[in-house]
């Protein structure tokens, strides 16, 4: 049984088709089970619900492909949103400065993560665990333990919740910009991973770090860059979240890292590194939000929603393991 399955999954192209198929099946199942599921509004709701987790997942995909992990993404996202709030609401700086400041906060946190991991040789798990707490604490410190609101800068809310597409094509109704941003950054992440030197090095480090070093790659430098890149996506997620909620909530964000990592794993990126794709991560994130949305629409008790999500994650990793056992 395991062998047959692993033969099926050994081709990564086929694997992605299968993942699309499972997402499709999920949609088909929920559409048949409830007439309220497959409506334009609900599909938009699912896409919007995927944005924040999806952006975090995009960033951490790079890190996971190198064989690392980043547990700080949830709370770094929080401090990024809080810093945007500090810049825009407290310091009255222009909105674009605030947005940039939020994103750069993420980049800086990622850069520190990368430096600690590559230069001080701390295991990524520990380094980013530390950063998780630092970011959480600092978010409380700089916000004064209070939510920061963006009411004085109405344009900020439009970043995620305005509807550029809706105003161009009125037939689309409300099509939140957050989804457009998400799509844009999916494309950017995909290009970086598949078409640039940075992408190639990401895979090289993850497949065999020592070999990459011996072939002349400055592994420390590139690792730092990769963590900083992850931080950039996290910062963007922070801005999008703050924009959607029109506030920066300093106590929010912890636990989001696990959802994002789950999306990456469901998307077929191996936690052992060397393998993965942006498309997979996006489908993984979509599977997760479709599942939560669908189960909610069917009024499945929440306790069981959590159980089902857990089963899906174990199933996804199991598929990865049996596929690998075939290769070795």
């Amino acid at each position, binding site marked *: 049984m395991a062998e047959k399955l692993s033969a099926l999954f050994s081709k990564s192209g086929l694997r992605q088709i299968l993942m699309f198929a499972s997402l499709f099946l999920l949609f088909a199942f929920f559409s048949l089970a*409830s007439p*309220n*599921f497959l*409506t334009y*509004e*609900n599909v938009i*709701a699912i896409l*919007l*619900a995927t944005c*924040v987790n999806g952006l975090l997942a995009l960033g951490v995909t790079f890190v996971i492909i190198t064989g690392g992990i980043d547990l700080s993404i949830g709370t770094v996202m929080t401090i990024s949103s809080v810093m945007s709030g500090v810049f825009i609401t407290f310091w009255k700086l222009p909105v674009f400065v605030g947005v940039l400041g939020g994103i750069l906060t993420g980049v800086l946190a990622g850069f520190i993560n990368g430096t600690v991991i590559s230069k001080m040789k701390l295991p990524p798990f520990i380094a980013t665990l530390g950063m998780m707490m630092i970011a959480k604490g600092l978010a*409380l410190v700089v916000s004064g*333990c*209070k*939510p920061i*609101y963006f*009411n004085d800068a109405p344009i900020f809310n439009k970043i995620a*919740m305005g509807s550029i597409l809706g105003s161009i094509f009125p037939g689309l109704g*409300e099509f*939140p910009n957050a989804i457009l941003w998400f799509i844009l950054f999916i494309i950017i992440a995909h290009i970086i991973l598949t078409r640039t030197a940075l992408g190639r090095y990401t895979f090289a480090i993850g497949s065999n770090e020592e070999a990459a070093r011996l072939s002349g790659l400055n592994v420390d430098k590139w690792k730092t860059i990769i963590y900083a890149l992850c931080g950039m996506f996290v910062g963007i997620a922070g801005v999008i*979240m703050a924009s*959607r*909620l*029109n*506030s920066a*909530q*300093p*106590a*929010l964000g912890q636990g989001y890292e696990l959802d994002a990592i789950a999306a990456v794993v469901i998307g077929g990126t191996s936690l052992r590194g060397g393998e993965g794709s942006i498309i997979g991560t996006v489908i993984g994130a979509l599977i997760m*939000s479709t599942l*939560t*949305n669908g189960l*909610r*629409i*069917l*009024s499945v008790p*929440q*306790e069981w929603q959590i159980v089902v999500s857990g089963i899906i994650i174990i199933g996804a990793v199991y598929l990865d393991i049996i596929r690998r056992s075939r290769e070795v």
Partner: protein
Amino acid sequence: MKRFLIVTLISLFLIGFSITSAQRPYIAMISKGFQHQFWQAVKMGAEKAAKDLNVTITFEGPESEAMVDKQIEMLQAALAKKPAALCIAALDSKAVIPYLEKAHSMGIPVIGFDSGVDSDIPVTTVATDNIKAAGYAADMMAKFINRVGEVALVVHDQTSRTGIDRRDGFVNRIKQKYPLIKIVAIQYGGGDHLKSTDLAKAIIQAHPRLKGIFGANEGSAIGVINAVREMNKVGKIVVIGYDSGKQQIDAIKSGLMAGAITQNPVGMGYMAVEAAVKAIKGEKLPKFIDSGFYWYDKTNIDDPKIKQCLYE
């Protein structure tokens, strides 16, 4: 020389401390948190009472309401300071009992606030009657939807006392008094604004004839407001909230939210210290002191009595 200096400083400090504590009774207050506006408001009330009644208080709490162990460390440290009374908002109603027993054996009166403890040791508990308050929210919901139709609940969690009481208070009142109102969904969002938004959207999507949603705490209520706005259901779905915060206040002023229940955190802090002072003097106290709640909406939101219970 250096050592001498340090010893002198420490003893001076200790003398100073014992003088102040000899003059004014010291009450240790341990809350469930500190970063939440709610606890800041409780602290404000407690500090006012301390000033009025001429006692010294300390107010501390763990940074997250999940940190039961941290709260116990704080409890231990507080007992080491031998306070005249101890006020506690227990995160875990059972885990704190051994320490309350210790306080009891040391002759320190214990006052519960915000939530009770599974023990007879606290001389009294000052808290919101969440069942009563949520029942009132249900009455208001019934009023706004003319006693007929589908309603849903977004609650913070299914395990905490406040989550359970607010849910049951609302649900039971509807079942007892309003046979034509049907509760079609109860979902839990952990008090997380974003998660509550997405789940409220799913509820609205699943029940197109939904007439009202009750959000059982600040994060849940804001999630519901966001969902109603994002689904273009403003004016079609009655939103009733719980607790306070700038976004809820704005939503009420703009008509997005019909109204909300607020606890009386300032009063709770004040009454807890007041009860502690009475307990120190050996006065008899009732087992439960209801710190009360308020319904607030467009009409009374600027009333000073309400205003001091609302925090932005």
